[in-house]
């Protein structure tokens, strides 16, 4: 029997209700591993390239990896993929929580959905029983209500639910899917894809148990990783603050996006930092399945209570839009989680509008009378409601910053910070060059998670010398060797995704290398995942992603950054005077990757 893997692939045609369970093919899995690699290979093979993302032809895939739901720490993630509604290119998004493990225990490695439900529905998977159930009573409900209602309807609190909120129903382009209420699959509009298929949720209950091929060997490897996590120098800090530790850290190196990237220093950072959040509002740690870092937090404020926020949300709703009121940021986090709206993209649309108003390009009259002065909480709150309902000006904002700037023109496009249509993350690339390159070449658009070259922030010069023979790689301000670093960490990041493991641990804490991963995979699945085989699979997946994106219309000209980051040096702080020489870095990257000068993979 197949160990590690769930053992089945589920295909569902939502239009006709046809479902089919097929056995997972080990030979196929050796080339794609699982998770994101499995999903994007499936898209590469089966997706009709010219389909509109919101039509029934688009595919919706949920994938997990061979070792999700087992003993391994932080192996909690699942990846949702499809053609992205906001960008029109490859879209995928991962989230932790408990859904992935439950899907695995139900016996699945991947769920492929096509078509569109006739009426609002949700997919219920209970081991080998698959049912498309009516969700009319759930339509219009927020994510927390939906999750609770499904559990109540099924009379089972252990059911795991991945659901969308009103934003997804109303086809807001950057709507999210949430599991465990607060674990968001954000960014590429997978919630919008759910909504376009009239799919309110996927609920899963697995009563099976997983086996691994070599129990003792696997146990020892897991213990080894546990030990590395527990003794990591950043353990205490990451355990108490999670990713919100970056607020203070990024401000310290002068790259905390402030007033929509006009500055890299925020003078009120102490009021909105992760430390303040922990001190004033946190009540306890939260965690994903089987993780021993426990980096998430549950908080209570005067008005709301919720889990989170992670750094990107915290920064998007504080310094990036000029808001110094932490409690308001936390309130918005809870609101966005309920409604299923992406915090980065919604934050970018707000930041863009505020900067355009500051520069006099656009005025109140362009925005239904809303007053976009920096940090105006009333405007933000009102606008978010309008976006979710697609009311008035909110209808335009719901399309994302790229299309918003195209609509208004008047030079406002220069301040729309996206790459390939996906809004930029928080972390000013001018002071972290390898990250800048990552945003430019990432196959889903402006994000850091495709490579997360956190190594350049660690100042481990000797380690850089040992690994790549270049000390400069450990210097965040240097451009030297950054293409080599990104080429390496891109594979490492994909490996983490294929293993649907947490990037905080696999990458930021630098605990996962190819050799260790291959030993884990071999012990877990019993298949011959040699380090060479793993590397070959990873390279194959990156090339296929690129080829698919080229089919979707991506060209080398789009592998770049918004003008601010390449031409306007930072004015103060520890990254003063820096810009990203993105053109040169991208060329070096193509070469390191073995692609031609136009970024086309060579067979």
């Amino acid at each position: 029997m197949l160990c590690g893997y769930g053992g089945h692939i589920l295909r569902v045609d939502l239009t006709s209700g046809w479902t089919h369970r097929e056995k997972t093919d080990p030979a196929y899995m050796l080339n794609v591993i699982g998770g994101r690699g499995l999903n994007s290979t499936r898209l590469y093979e089966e997706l009709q390239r010219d389909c509109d993302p919101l039509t029934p032809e688009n595919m919706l895939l949920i994938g997990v990896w061979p070792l999700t739901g087992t003993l391994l720490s932080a192996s909690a993630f699942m990846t949702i993929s499809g053609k992205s509604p906001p960008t029109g290119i490859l879209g995928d998004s991962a989230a932790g929580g408990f859904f992935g493990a439950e899907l695995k225990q139900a016996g699945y490695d991947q769920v492929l959905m096509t078509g569109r439900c006739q009426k609002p529905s949700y997919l219920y998977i209970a081991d080998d029983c698959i049912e498309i159930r009516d969700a009319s009573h759930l339509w219009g409900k927020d994510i927390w209500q939906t999750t609770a209602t499904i559990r109540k309807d099924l009379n089972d609190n252990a059911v795991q639910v991945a659901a969308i909120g009103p934003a997804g129903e109303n086809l807001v382009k950057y709507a999210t899917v949430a599991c465990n209420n607060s674990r968001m699959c954000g960014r590429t509009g997978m919630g919008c894809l759910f909504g376009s298929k009239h799919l309110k949720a996927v609920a899963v209950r697995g009563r099976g148990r997983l086996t691994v091929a070599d129990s003792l060997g696997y146990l020892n490897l897991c213990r080894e990783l546990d030990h590395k996590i527990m003794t990591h120098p950043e353990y205490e800090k990451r355990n108490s603050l999670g990713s919100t530790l970056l607020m203070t850290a990024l401000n310290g190196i002068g790259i905390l996006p402030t007033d929509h990237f006009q500055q890299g220093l925020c003078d009120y950072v102490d009021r909105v930092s992760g430390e303040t959040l922990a001190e004033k509002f946190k009540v306890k740690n939260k965690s994903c399945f089987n993780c021993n870092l426990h980096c998430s937090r549950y908080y209570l404020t005067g008005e709301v209570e919720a889990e989170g926020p992670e750094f990107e949300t915290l920064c998007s709703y504080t310094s990036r839009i000029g808001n110094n009121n932490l409690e308001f940021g936390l309130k918005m986090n809870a609101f966005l989680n309920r409604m299923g709206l992406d915090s980065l993209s919604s934050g970018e649309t707000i930041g863009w509008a505020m900067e355009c108003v500051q520069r006099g390009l656009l005025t109140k009259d362009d925005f239904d009378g809303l007053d976009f002065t920096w940090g105006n909480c009333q405007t933000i709150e009102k606008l978010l409601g309008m976006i979710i309902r697609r009311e008035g000006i909110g209808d335009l904002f719901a399309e994302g910053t790229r299309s918003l700037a195209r609509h208004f023109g008047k030079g406002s496009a220069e301040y729309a910070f996206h790459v390939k249509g996906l809004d930029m993350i928080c972390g000013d690339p001018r002071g972290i060059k390898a990250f800048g390159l990552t945003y430019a070449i990432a196959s889903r658009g402006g994000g850091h998670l495709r490579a997360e070259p956190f190594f350049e922030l660690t100042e481990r010069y000797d380690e850089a010398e040992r690994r790549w023979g270049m000390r400069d790689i450990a210097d965040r301000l240097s451009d030297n060797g950054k293409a080599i670093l990104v080429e390496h960490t891109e594979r490492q990041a994909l490996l983490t995704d294929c293993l649907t493991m947490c990037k905080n641990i696999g990458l930021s804490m630098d605990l996962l290398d190819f050799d260790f991963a291959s030993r884990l995979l071999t012990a877990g699945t019993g298949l011959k995942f040699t380090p060479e085989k793993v590397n070959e699979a990873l390279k194959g997946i990156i090339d296929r992603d690129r080829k698919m994106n080229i089919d979707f219309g991506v060209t080398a000209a789009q592998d770049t950054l918004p003008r601010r980051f390449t031409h306007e040096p930072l004015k103060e702080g520890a990254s003063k005077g820096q810009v990203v020489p993105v053109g040169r870095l991208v060329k070096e990257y193509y070469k390191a990757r073995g692609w031609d000068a136009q970024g086309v993979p060579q067979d």
Partner: protein
Amino acid sequence: MITLDLARCSGCSRCEVNCSFFHSGKIGRSGARIKVVKVEDIGIDYPLVCQQCSECYCTRCPEKAIQIGSLGQIIVSPTLCTACGTCEILCPIGAIELYEEIPLVCDLCGGDPRCIMACTLDAIHYECDVTAAVSLREFKKASRGLGPEEKRLRYATIRSRELRDSWAAGRRG
């Protein structure tokens, strides 16, 4: 018995995973004898396990297949058990549940519980004192007719009220 420091639990389910693995070599919530109940809308994660209650409800087994061991743990006889499910019905908190026709309940791993070792937040503890029995009488009546998952949810919700109150007092005054 296994005791809980609820405020520390993050709900990671490492106890559950390790319990299942060390009992069967397989991993899954269904095979675990300690189960983390997640009451998500109030932020509570409650690892629920046999409390070795003073009433010993499950020992009223019609086949006399359930006995109490020297550590206070529940011992199910595989030869006498007919998988009738009475124990599952009798337990007021859902700590014993049939899986693949075997009643699964905490056996304290012979005095060295794996779940305790797996917890990195120090949220669960093992106390050897078998006389410190807990009464579950107050949960019994309203648990009638509920399935194990519902009983666990009910127990966790009631048991977490105190912690919820302390959060509210600390953060909202």
